[in-house]
């Protein structure tokens, strides 16, 4: 069984769990993901690996409560087990040849950006990190980023912590100030990645983005995770589970990806509402 060996609430919405999955822990690299089911008959959800320890067999996942499944996951405690946990899936982030990196994380995407930044640092790379959140209460992983970054910029949308604004502000400031990077890594909500790409584009620096579409099997069977790249003016279909999840930020059709992500919004909202009601009912009965 895949037991939970560590749990920490990073903020009101974001939880970190370490799952005992030795085979996955031995293999997982920055940028890869796992698929889990909380219980038998639950849905399969993909989550990017936030860290892995081959010695202890622990795989770290950091996730935001956005729906019924992540809500159920966030309510598990140390000692509880997951029904299924499979990985590592997808290709690891390509880090070769990068000596000076700009790592940009948005919201819970910082959990995915962190292992990439860490791997870059361990490879002797100079790392500048920009992390952005909606507000002060939602800031996560600041200490971890500061430990591995040569320079760390924090922004919040409402200015309650760090610089006011979105991640594009410090990115633009760094680039227009003459900072030189071999590659930019942007991980976060689609709209944040889209605008980071647009900000970086005039400087012609390669940019990697990490896509997180709806998936079922995660092994290249269902095709649900398909997205479009525009390569030499041609639309090319790719599958995030086997071709990604990392892609060339300049090629990704972000608008299409955003549209596809909304395929089940009604169902998800309903399921989340149901799950919340169940919990409230349970608490009322126990209280």
């Amino acid at each position, binding site marked *: 069984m895949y037991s939970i060996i560590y749990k920490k609430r990073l903020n009101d919405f974001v939880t970190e769990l370490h799952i005992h999955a030795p085979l996955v822990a031995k293999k997982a690299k920055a940028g890869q993901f796992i698929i889990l089911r909380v219980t038998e008959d639950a849905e399969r959800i993909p989550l990017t690996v936030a860290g892995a320890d081959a010695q202890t067999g622990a795989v770290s996942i950091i996730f935001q409560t956005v729906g019924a499944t992540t809500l159920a996951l966030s309510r598990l405690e140390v000692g509880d087990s997951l029904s299924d946990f499979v*990985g590592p899936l997808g290709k690891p982030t390509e880090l070769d040849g990068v000596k000076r990196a700009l790592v940009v994380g948005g919201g819970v995407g910082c959990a995915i950006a962190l292992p990439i930044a860490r791997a870059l640092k361990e490879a002797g790379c100079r790392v500048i990190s920009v992390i952005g959140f909606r507000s002060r209460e939602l800031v996560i992983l600041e200490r971890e980023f500061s430990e591995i970054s040569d320079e760390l910029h924090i922004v919040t949308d409402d200015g309650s912590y760090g610089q006011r604004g979105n991640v594009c502000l410090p990115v633009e400031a760094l680039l227009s100030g003459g900072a030189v990077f071999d590659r930019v890594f942007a991980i976060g909500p689609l709209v944040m990645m889209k605008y980071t790409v647009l900000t970086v584009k005039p400087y012609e620096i390669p940019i990697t983005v990490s896509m997180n579409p709806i998936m079922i099997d995660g092994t290249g*069977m*269902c095709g649900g995770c*398909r997205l479009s790249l525009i390569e030499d003016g041609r639309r090319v279909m790719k599958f995030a589970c086997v071709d990604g999840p990392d892609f060339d930020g300049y090629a990704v059709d972000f608008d299409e990806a955003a549209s596809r992500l909304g395929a089940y919004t009604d169902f998800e909202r309903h399921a989340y509402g149901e799950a919340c009601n169940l919990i409230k009912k349970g608490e009322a009965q126990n209280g």
Partner: protein
Amino acid sequence: MANMSPKKNKMPTLSPEQRRTSFDEVATGYTEEMAIDEALRCLGCRNMPCVSACPVNIRIPEFIAKIRECDFEGAYEIISQSSSLPAVCGRVCPQETQCESKCVRGIKGEPVGIGRLERFVADWHNKNTQPVLNNIPKNGKKVAVVGSGPAGLACAGDLARLGYGVTVFEALHTAGGVLVYGIPEFRLPKSIVGREVENLRALGVEIETNVVIGKTLTVDELFENGFGAVFIASGAGLPNFMGIPGESYKGVYSANEFLTRSNLMKAYSPDSQTPIMRAERVAVVGGGNVAMDAARTALRLGAKKVYIVYRRSMEELPARREEVLHAIEEGIEFLILTNPTEILGYANESDSRDPKNGFVTGIKCVKMELGEPDERGRRRPVKIDGSEHIIPVDAVIMSIGTSPNPLIKSTTAGLDVNGHGGIIVGEDGATTREGVYAGGDAVTGAATVISAMGAGKLAAKSIHSYLKDK
């Protein structure tokens, strides 16, 4: 006294009305009386043309003779010497192009219902016996099987009977491969697959779910972990799309995704946590068994109108005949000689936040006519100019085949694949890498359950001759 009726005993089925709202199995199976009566139609030909037309050479006249004697368990024993999954194959084999196509009774009338009899025997066995723990002496040698679909299960069963320690690695959370994620409950109840898997466990086969070979473990690591041989039966891979505009709209599914959501993830149940679009009007593109499965699933999920869109004519439909007949009975409309050119989606130009934006609204098609035969002798469909038309639908399911999965190839040195990405094997199922065998859709591309099972059995034989003296 032989039964000289020119017709098969009819297979009892649920009525089309019952079927449209139910995932219960459509064909309910012969009774003992029907089976014996059908068995009496077999002439017991000495040259047994049916046997040579069976991909795994089941001794058909012999098992049918046992049915005539009311020795159903005896019939099962004969079948199980050749087939590992009789309850499955009796249901999903295309008998009309295999065993039954060579039946002498088919010259004047209908052939013997061999598939129906096979199913009867297997169901009788499963109902009246329990899996028996086998005390086969182990030979101390280990074999890894990659994938728990029909090829993998067949290979695992045969090797376990020979005394090998067999571990089957399955990427998904449930064993069965396409038998659980692909073929719907109404055609192949999952309890039957479950029982076949239990039979294998009773033989000592270990099944490790949630392990993706090529990712969690590589083929090299399997050898390092003491496995003497590896059989790759990882199945077909990435679904094909047509490459026409609009395939990214919401409501466009690959058949694999649509069926996986409904079958494996049980999205048809109101309690399921996995969503599926309950479309009112659905177009399924393709003419194979998978297309029929997708169309009939969409109907059961509540669609008011379901079309099969197929570019050739009814004659060329590759699906099993019984599935086509069942689909027609259930009210699926066949738009033959029709080929999609574009999928249309909703776009509110004045409101980018309109929730309907990006959802399918229709499919643009052209009419086709059959032209000259192609290299395989099938007449090539040719577009009729000016025949463009739009069919309003809110979901499109692409069921036009798959391309091999790259995961194992890309992580296994020395494993050669052909131009289509299928693993290259010799006549004995051996790949270009020593100790590694392959079979099923991973080799051939999308094919049938029985041919995959046959490949699994062949590989088991080859692995045995490779390992027995090692």
